[in-house]
């Protein structure tokens, strides 16, 4: 079964779906393109799930394909997934149909997120769904590429659909947000290009130039060169992730984009940043990684605390989620760069959990904002009374974001925190404060927006509860949060071999355990006891 080009199929199907969606005649209700888009994304999901049944838990790259692409450049069309890649591909495949379902009417003519926004144009309706599918295809390609050149190409190519999604749909200032988004990403990407080319030069010095991940891992790169290459890669991924001080595009973008777009950006595309750090910084440049660890951990800590503190003061719900993500990405990067198996496993698990929890939060907030016509927390209130299901789900997803035990983000956050304390007590001490800040802004937001008396002159009575479509898009995310909160073992089984391989390559070993719990079983027991 492993000879079957599963990954190519996973890229081609949504891509064809995107073309079909764009080419279909839009009837007056615009249903057909949407149905094709949803069908394609569901088909992709089914294929991804079927593929993962064939995944061997021993780790290593699987479902590999390799063809020479540009001989002169040493570039190959080479695909394959290991534990990390598989989870990211699955996350992408799960979130895309949910986003399409949730955005069903968001791109219709006349649809607006806030009341003062200008309406999207009718001929653009199909484009939203086509771009979303294109983004899915390219994201899967990013997570499946095992050739650095191919990775770079699709990494940059994801910007095109993302740019049109941000620039075409959402708030009044979306064009500026889209340009800012694109310039940040392009600048980061081009800095990385210097490092990508540097890898070619290094590889040419060691014989035939090749961009294959396996070939590059096989050569020993001079530690000084590694530092330069690391800086190039890291800046690109820090912009993508985003990490302080490269984060300012994220709140601007989440504020202006539709919530569906935000889910794709924050929950899928931004994962490429963390993914790239794991894959390229740790995987190819172990010496550079060890050299940069103190600086990166400092940036991660600043992101964690700074993102959380700014989030407390935000009135715009969508900007608040943007800053919340900055804080959470700080945790992921911290987990990656403390270089221990708890930290690594925690970080990868955090990537999955953050994807699920933040997607859920964005979507439910989007439903609310559309009903209220504003994203301002101050202008809301009393939603609990009229829309209990909406408010309840909002609370659950908010609690997930603040890592309440019993919901899946808890497991990953506790792993990262343990690893942070093992690394150095003050690193852990700073990171752990985020639990308080997060609780503060999430609960305070809930209190102001959902409880209390109904606003005078407000439109609370118009605030319908969630309909079946909306509940349907949130239900899978809710289930995932609960199931993986109590039973993260399936995910850990996929993650742990990958983390062990990577850490072995970096050349670090876990500190000797000071308590009598085996590091790998820790998540299950901790999570299970809740």
């Amino acid at each position, binding site marked *: 079964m492993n000879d079957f080009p599963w990954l190519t199929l996973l890229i081609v199907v949504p891509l064809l779906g995107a073309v079909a969606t764009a080419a279909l005649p839009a009837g007056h209700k615009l249903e057909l393109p949407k149905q094709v888009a949803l069908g394609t994304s569901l088909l992709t999901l089914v294929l991804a799930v079927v593929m993962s049944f064939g995944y061997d838990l021993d780790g290593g790259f699987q479902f590999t394909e390799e063809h020479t692409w540009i*001989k*002169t450049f040493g570039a190959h069309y080479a695909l394959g997934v290991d534990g990390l890649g598989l989870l990211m591909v699955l996350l992408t495949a799960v979130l895309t149909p949910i986003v399409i379902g949730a955005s069903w009417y968001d791109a219709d003519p006349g649809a607006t997120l806030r009341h003062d926004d200008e309406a999207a144009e009718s001929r653009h309706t199909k484009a939203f769904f086509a771009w979303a599918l294109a983004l899915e295809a390219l994201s899967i390609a990013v997570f499946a590429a095992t050739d650095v050149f191919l990775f770079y190409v699709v990494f*940059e*190519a994801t910007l095109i659909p993302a740019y049109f999604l941000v620039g075409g749909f959402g708030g009044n200032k979306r*064009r500026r947000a889209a*340009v800012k988004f694109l310039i940040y990403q392009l*600048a980061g990407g081009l*800095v990385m290009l210097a490092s990508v080319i540097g890898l070619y030069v290094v590889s040419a010095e060691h014989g035939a130039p090749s961009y294959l991940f396996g070939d590059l891992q096989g050569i020993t790169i001079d530690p000084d060169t590694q530092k330069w290459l690391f800086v190039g890669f890291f800046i690109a991924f820090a912009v993508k992730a985003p990490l302080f001080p490269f984060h300012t595009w994220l709140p601007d973008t989440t504020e202006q984009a539709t919530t569906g777009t935000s889910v794709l950006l924050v929950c899928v595309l931004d994962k490429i940043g963390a993914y790239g750090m794991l894959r390229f910084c740790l995987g190819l440049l172990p010496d550079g990684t060890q050299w940069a660890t103190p600086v990166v951990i400092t940036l991660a800590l600043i992101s964690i605390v700074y993102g959380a503190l700014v989030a407390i003061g935000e009135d715009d719900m969508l900007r608040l989620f943007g800053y919340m993500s900055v804080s959470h990405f700080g945790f992921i990067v911290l987990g990656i760069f403390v270089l221990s198996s708890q930290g690594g496993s925690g970080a990868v698990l955090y990537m999955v959990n953050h994807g699920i929890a933040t997607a859920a939060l964005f979507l439910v907030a989007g439903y609310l904002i559309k009903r209220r016509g504003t994203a301002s927390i101050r202008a809301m209130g009393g939603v609990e009374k009229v829309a209990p299901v909406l408010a309840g789900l909002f609370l659950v997803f908010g609690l997930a974001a603040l890592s309440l035990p019993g919901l899946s983000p808890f497991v990953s956050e506790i792993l990262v925190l343990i690893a942070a304390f093992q690394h150095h007590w003050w690193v852990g001490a700073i990171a752990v404060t985020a639990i308080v800040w997060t609780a503060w802004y999430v609960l305070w937001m809930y209190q102001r927006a959902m409880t209390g008396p109904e606003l005078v002159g407000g439109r609370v009575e118009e605030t319908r509860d969630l309909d079946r479509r909306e509940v349907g898009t949130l239900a899978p995310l809710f289930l995932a949060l609960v199931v993986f909160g109590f039973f993260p073992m399936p995910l850990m089984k996929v993650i742990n071999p990958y983390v062990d391989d990577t850490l072995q390559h970096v050349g670090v070993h876990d500190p000797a355990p000071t308590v009598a719990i085996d590091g790998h079983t820790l998540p299950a027991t901790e999570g299970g006891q809740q």
Partner: protein
Amino acid sequence: MIALAAADTFVKPHLAYGSLWPILVVFGAACVGVLIEAFLPRQWRYAAQFGTALGAIVVALVGTGIVADRLTVRGGGVARGYFGSQGTVALDGPTMFLWGVVLVFSLGGVLLFAERHVEGGVSAFAGQAAALPGTESERQSAGLDHTEVYPLLLFAVGGMMLFPAAGDLLTMFVALEVLSLPLYLLCGLARRRRLLSQEAAMKYFLLGAFSSGFFIYGVALIYGYAGSMDFGAINEAVINNAGNQTLLVIGMGMVTVGLLFKVGAAPFQAWMPDVYQGAPTAVTAFMAAATKAAAFGALLRLLYVAFGSARWTWQPMMWVIAILTMVVGTVLALVQSDMKRMLAYSSIAHTGFLLTGVLGLQGAGELHAGQITSLEAVMFYLVTYGLTTLGAFAVVGLVRDSAGEQSTISRWAGLGKHSPVVAGVFALFLLGMAGIPLTSGFTGKWAVFEVALAAGAWPVVVVAVLASAAAAFFYVRVIVVMYFHEPDADSAYVVHPSILAAAAIGVSAVATLALGVLPGPVLDLAHSAGQFIR
């Protein structure tokens, strides 16, 4: 006495007609074009001139393929070819590659020149060049077609083919003039906005003449240094360290300045925005693509063959010029409000990227097996850049309002809504110039940055990637205007072209995509061209 003595020892020069004939076809067709202009009735001229020019270029292109196929291997297999005309013309792999490139661009140029649909039945050139703007005679000539442009184009193409093939400094100078003079004329022949066009021609001519002065003065100094005009002999003089080093350095500098004028490198770029803006758009498209290819070919041959052994002298200077060119082009492009001027500054920035490839010259021993050479990288970049630029300017020629071409960027608002195909193709060209992956610009950039990095020029590469990032901003700004701004009453509209311009744009667009996705064949072709013969 001397003449007699020379006559005694006269040997019939070996001209290598068998390999030179593609150039001769072009020059011959140009002469035929002049005769057509003199003897054929007016109503037949358009068809005859267009047919002659198109035919000559196609025949020359086929001929280039045939000649390239028969080149003999020399220099231990790294180069192919031989000298013709007693060493004044080097017929080698890179020459053939650049001939092909120039001819392909010229083909696009001819198609754009012949486009008559957009102006409502006449070409984009002034009916009568001599008629003063605003006079009665100009109004009388309004319905006339100017067909001298085809022979002018062919003369320029012939010069462009000779330019990178020149084997000595004098031939190079002659080629430089042959390609430049028709272009000065062509720039001044716009049908609309004639004063701007004539101003452009004047500026181009004056600054071009100025740069020729630099060039010829440098040639004299180099001759004083090496005692020969021949590139091979100059190279030997450099290796043997013969002669006065000051003469060499100053001469090298001056000759290079002459060529840097032509490619539009800072600080010699001042003419480009005015000329690109004022010239008829079809001429700009042809000139931007083909002149750059020819001039870079000449620059490469001069620096690699004649001064290759003195590269420690010129490489630092090239670092500075490349950095300056990229910064000037990018920064000034950011503030342009006119599409043609913006593309001109972007062209300057691309000159900087090309120079990044030029300074990536490494000795034969320093290159690793399978690694791309700087010559290959620059030649490949010329292909990607030229096709994208040709297509972009061709599209600019289609966007109009009642007064003719409308190249003010803000007037392109909403083009994506009412002309989705044209706007989409233009966006593709812009993305290609910005170097977004899966377009030709990216593979080209990768190639030139790689050779510079391999040669240790990492500061230049860092500036280059930062300049690329900044450059993306002004390309994207145009896409924003086209797609995300609402059209109003003043907005320009697209005039649908005939099959001629449509073919040129279509081929450019396909090439922009194809060279981004599967650049392999063209890279292989550049690789098989091998090195310059020495």
